[in-house]
C-alpha cells in the first residue's frame, strides 16, 4: 500500500516539476472563468428579472453552475488526453519504465500508483474549478446538494477519462499517438451520446454506453447509483486492461 501511495506522490511531484501541469491548470482556469463570468452576467442582467415571482423558478445553481460543470466536462475531452498521454507512453519513449519494473513493486502496484497520481491531479483541477461556484456563496444561497452532485459527477467523468487514457497510453510508445487516440476515443463516446439523443433514430443503448448520459444526470442533481456503478465499472475495466497490457509487454518484449 505504501508503495502505491509513494508512486502516486512521485507522479504528482513529477507533474508539478514540469511546466505542463501548471500550464494546463492555468488554461482550464482561464477558459472556465470566462465561461463562468459570461453565465453569471447573463443570469444577473437577463434571466433574473424574468424569474421574479415565478413558482419553482430555476435558480443560480441550475443556470450558472450546472452550465459551468458541463463546459468543464466538454473542455476536458481535449485536456485529459494531454494529461494521460505521458503516463506510460512517455516512459516507454524515454525507457524509464525499467526503473519501476526492476523495483520490487508489482505491475498492479505500478498501475494503481500511477492511476492514484492521476486521481490526485484531477482532484486539484476539480478544486480549482469549484472555487468559482464557492465564491458565489458569499453573495447568495447555493443549492449545495446540487453543487456537490455536479462536483461528484465531474470527478467521476474525469476519472473515467483518465482510466481510458491511461490504458491507451500503455499500448503505444509515442505520447502524441496516445493523445490523439485518447482524444478520438473520448469524442467517440461523446458522439454516442449525441446519437443516443438524436431525434427519430435515438437509441437508449447508445446514450447508456456514453459517459455523458450519466454525467448529465449528476448535473441535474440526480444521484443515481446506476450512474455511479457505470463509472466504477468503466474505471475498473480500463485499469485491469492496463495491468494486462503491461504484463503483456513483459512477456512479449
Amino acid at each position: 500500500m505504501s508503495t502505491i501511495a509513494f508512486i502516486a506522490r512521485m507522479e504528482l511531484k513529477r507533474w508539478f516539476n514540469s511546466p505542463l501541469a501548471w500550464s494546463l491548470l492555468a488554461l482550464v482556469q482561464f477558459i472556465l472563468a470566462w465561461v463562468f463570468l459570461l453565465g453569471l452576467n447573463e443570469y444577473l442582467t437577463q434571466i433574473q428579472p424574468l424569474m421574479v415571482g415565478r413558482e419553482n423558478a430555476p435558480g443560480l445553481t441550475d443556470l450558472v453552475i450546472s452550465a459551468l460543470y458541463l463546459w468543464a466536462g466538454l473542455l476536458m475531452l481535449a485536456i485529459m488526453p494531454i494529461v494521460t498521454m505521458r503516463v506510460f507512453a512517455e516512459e516507454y519513449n524515454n525507457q524509464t519504465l525499467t526503473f519501476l519494473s526492476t523495483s520490487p513493486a508489482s505491475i498492479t502496484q505500478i498501475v494503481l500508483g500511477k492511476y492514484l497520481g492521476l486521481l490526485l491531479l484531477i482532484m486539484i483541477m476539480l478544486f480549482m474549478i469549484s472555487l468559482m461556484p464557492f465564491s458565489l456563496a458569499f453573495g447568495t444561497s447555493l443549492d449545495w446538494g446540487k453543487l456537490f452532485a455536479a462536483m461528484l459527477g465531474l470527478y467521476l467523468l474525469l476519472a473515467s477519462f483518465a482510466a481510458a487514457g491511461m490504458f491507451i497510453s500503455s499500448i503505444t510508445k509515442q505520447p502524441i499517438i496516445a493523445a490523439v487516440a485518447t482524444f478520438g476515443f473520448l469524442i467517440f463516446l461523446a458522439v454516442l451520446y449525441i446519437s443516443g439523443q438524436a431525434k427519430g433514430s435515438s437509441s437508449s443503448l447508445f446514450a447508456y454506453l456514453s459517459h455523458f448520459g450519466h454525467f448529465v444526470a449528476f448535473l441535474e442533481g440526480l444521484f443515481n447509483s446506476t450512474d455511479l456503478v457505470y463509472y466504477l465499472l468503466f474505471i475498473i475495466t480500463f485499469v485491469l486492461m492496463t495491468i494486462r497490457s503491461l504484463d503483456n509487454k513483459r512477456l512479449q518484449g
Partner: protein
Amino acid sequence: MFVIIARAWHDWVGVDITSWKFSLMMQQQQVTLVATQLSRFYHKYCAVNNLNLCLERGQVLGLLGANGAGKSTTLQMLSGNLAPTTGSIQINGIDLLDQPRLAKHQLGYLPEQPALYKDLTINEQLIYAARLQELTKQEANEAVAYARQRCHLDEMQDRLIGNLSKGFRQRVGIAQAILHSPTLIILDEPTVGLDPIQVNDLRKLIRELGESHSVILSTHILSEVKAVCDRVHILDCGETVFSGDISGETVQSLEKQFFDLVGPEAQLADQDVAV
C-alpha cells in the same frame, strides 16, 4: 537415479528433497544466481538460446559478445524486465518468476540507458528508488547518502537529471543500482560515455562491489573484461560459445579466443555479402 528416488520420495512423503538439497548446496557455496536453460524468442527469431549461468558471491562475470549477440536480452531477463520463453532464474535461491517481489529486493540493475526521470533531481530520484525498495525514510536517507558518496555525486545532489551529462547520468544509474546493497548487481555496458578517469574509478568500484556482492556486466570491450572480471561468458548469436574463469593464461589468449569464437562466422557472413 537420484532424481527418480527423489521424485518417489516427494510423491510419498510430500517433502521435496531435491529442492531441499539444492538450497543447502546454495547456502554452502553462496551461489547468488542460477539461470538454467534460458531461451528467448522474439516471434521466430531466437535472441538467446539455452543459456546456463551460475554465479557465486564475490565473483564478477563479464558477458562478452559482438553487437546483437543477445547480451542485453540476457540481462533484461535476469533483471525481470523480460520474461524468458523457457528456463528459470533463481536469485539467492528465490525464483524470479514465482516470487518477483522477494527476488527483486536482491537485485540492482543498470539498463543500457539509465532509467532516470529527467524532471527529478538526483536526490529525489535516489530516494524514489530507495523507497520502492521498501526502505523506511531513515534507511532510505542513509542508503542514498552511501550510494551518493560511492559514486561521487555529493556535490551534484540537487541538480536536475535532465541537465546532467551522459557520464553523470550513468553514475546516478549505478548509484541507483547499488543503494539497497543487493546481492546481485547487473550492469549493462556500464562504462559507455564515461571519461577515462571515471572509467578507472568505475572499474575500481566494480571490483570493490565484486568482493561482497555478485556482479554481472556486459561489454564489448575486451580490456575491460581483463581488468575487472573473474569469469567470462562469450555469446554469439544467442549461443554460448565460451564460459570459464579468467586465469593468467586465459587473459593472454582471451583476445585470440574471442576472435576465434566469434570471428569466423563474421568472416563467413562477409563472404556471403561479397558473393
